[in-house]
């Protein structure tokens, strides 16, 4: 019991540290990649190739003035970044990062908690993150924030259904809700669910971008019309908490996507953790690529797309998968 508790705590600490570093360096990755796509150079001066830029940014944000607007609801204003931040990290509790390994004589599994309803846990926890956006928008006492918060909630409600349904195909085929079992079903590349659920994968990818509020679905923080949307009034560490939360959410979606559709940690030659990292990196790169390529949707286009295209397609995919399995 004690041994289990210690190993689990160590795993949690390691994952959180790795994730925080990963979040910081995703900002660097994003700036560099977008810069190259736009014929620029990107961060360059802090350290070699600008590699220390995320650390410099973090130090700057910590020492900035922590400002709370006069008309803000103080308690909710403080709570909002935390609510936006915590659920993104809770997703990683059920993500299998690696196969079981023996370390210092202990058998350590590559997953914090192998829930038998892991996929549902991902959906449940992921759906809680939107409260950060809503609360931030409501509590700031600013019209731009409020509009951003409203957009965030409407967008999440619209895309959550299709998001959940896009995963259902994999669940039907795999006949399980456990993340580790889904990984073990995809031993070779031909077993990857991306080939058996191509429509499901595209739907998952699209809805995931809307869920994480990334471009081209970043309406809650559309800077051309809403200043900065729901986090207009935030500064200093509170702002960076939102920022880290957003990147953690991206990495979480990458982890879930590679687990469900790309075979998780399975892969030849390289150690499992590295395969997982490569697959997550592919997701992140795709996100950044899309951001640099596509213009932002208009709001009514976003709603129409969600309800009239993605949602019917998701239902169609679920029905087809069910029919094929029964047949």
């Amino acid at each position, binding site marked *: 019991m004690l041994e289990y508790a210690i190993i689990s705590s160590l795993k949690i600490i390691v994952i959180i540290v790795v994730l925080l570093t990963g979040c910081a360096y995703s900002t660097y990755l994003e700036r560099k990649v977008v810069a190259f796509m736009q014929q620029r150079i990107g961060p360059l001066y802090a350290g070699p190739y600008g590699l220390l830029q995320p650390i410099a940014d973090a130090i700057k944000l910590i020492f900035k003035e922590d400002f709370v607007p006069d008309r803000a609801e103080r308690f909710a204003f403080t709570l909002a970044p935390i609510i936006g931040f915590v659920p993104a990290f809770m997703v990683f509790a059920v993500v299998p990062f690696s196969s079981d390994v023996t370390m210092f004589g202990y058998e350590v599994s590559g997953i914090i908690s192998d829930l038998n309803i892991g996929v549902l846990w991902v959906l449940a926890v992921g759906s809680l993150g939107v409260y950060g956006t809503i609360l931030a928008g*409501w509590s700031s006492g600013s019209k731009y924030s409020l509009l951003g918060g*409203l957009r965030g909630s409407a967008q999440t409600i619209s895309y959550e259904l299709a998001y*959940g349904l896009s995963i259902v195909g994999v669940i039907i085929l795999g006949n399980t809700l456990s993340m580790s079992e889904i990984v073990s079903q995809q031993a070779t590349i031909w077993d990857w669910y991306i080939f058996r659920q191509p429509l499901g994968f595209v739907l998952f990818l699209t809805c995931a971008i809307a869920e994480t509020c990334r471009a081209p679905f970043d309406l809650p923080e559309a800077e051309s019309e809403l200043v900065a949307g729901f986090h207009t009034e935030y500064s200093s560490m509170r702002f960076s908490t939102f920022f880290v939360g957003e990147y953690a959410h991206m990495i979480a979606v990458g982890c879930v996507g590679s687990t469900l559709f790309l075979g998780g940690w399975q892969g030849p030659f390289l150690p499992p953790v590295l395969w997982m990292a490569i697959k997550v990196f592919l997701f992140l790169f795709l996100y950044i690529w899309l951001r640099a390529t596509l213009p932002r949707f208009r709001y009514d286009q976003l709603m129409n797309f969600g309800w009239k295209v993605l949602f019917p397609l998701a239902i169609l995919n679920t029905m087809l998968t069910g029919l094929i399995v029964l047949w």
Partner: protein
Amino acid sequence: MNFELIIFGISAVIAVFGATMMIAQRNPVASVLYMILSLIAQAVCYVQLGALFLGVILIVVYAGAIMVLFLFVIMLLNLRGEEASEQDTPAVSQFTKYVFSVLLTLELVFIVKAASLDSVATQVADQVADGFGSVRQVAQVMFTNYLYPFELTGILLLVALVGAVVLAKRERDSYSSATDDADDDRSERVVE
């Protein structure tokens, strides 16, 4: 007194606290937040009783979807809580308020007298079989023993859905003589 019972007790207290604060708050947004707290605590209670699936579904459906809609509507109407005062409520609802609170309190007293917390929690935890509350078992019971109630619930929800669409449609017709396209634009702007 084992570890699980302690967690069950804590989450049960939090659930009741959240529910109480939900009623006591004047600010509707705060009420919604306390309700979410209560729902999450209830989900923990379910998990402690072995019904992991039900607990997570409670969070997905209620905390993740329905409460977001509640918050959305409250923010859209910009309710700040000062409007609802005692004078505005009609005498009938003033009367029913007291009647129902007395009735519900009596019911609560009877329930508490019938079963003490300690015995219920341990009994339920001991009695459950293997795989209790798993997806398979819930689905099996829902689609065999309780198929008709389940389908009836579905029809009931469908009726509510159609009703909502009809109501929304009628209201839109009454204040507009423009084309359908212009109507669509307006409704989307309201959502924005």
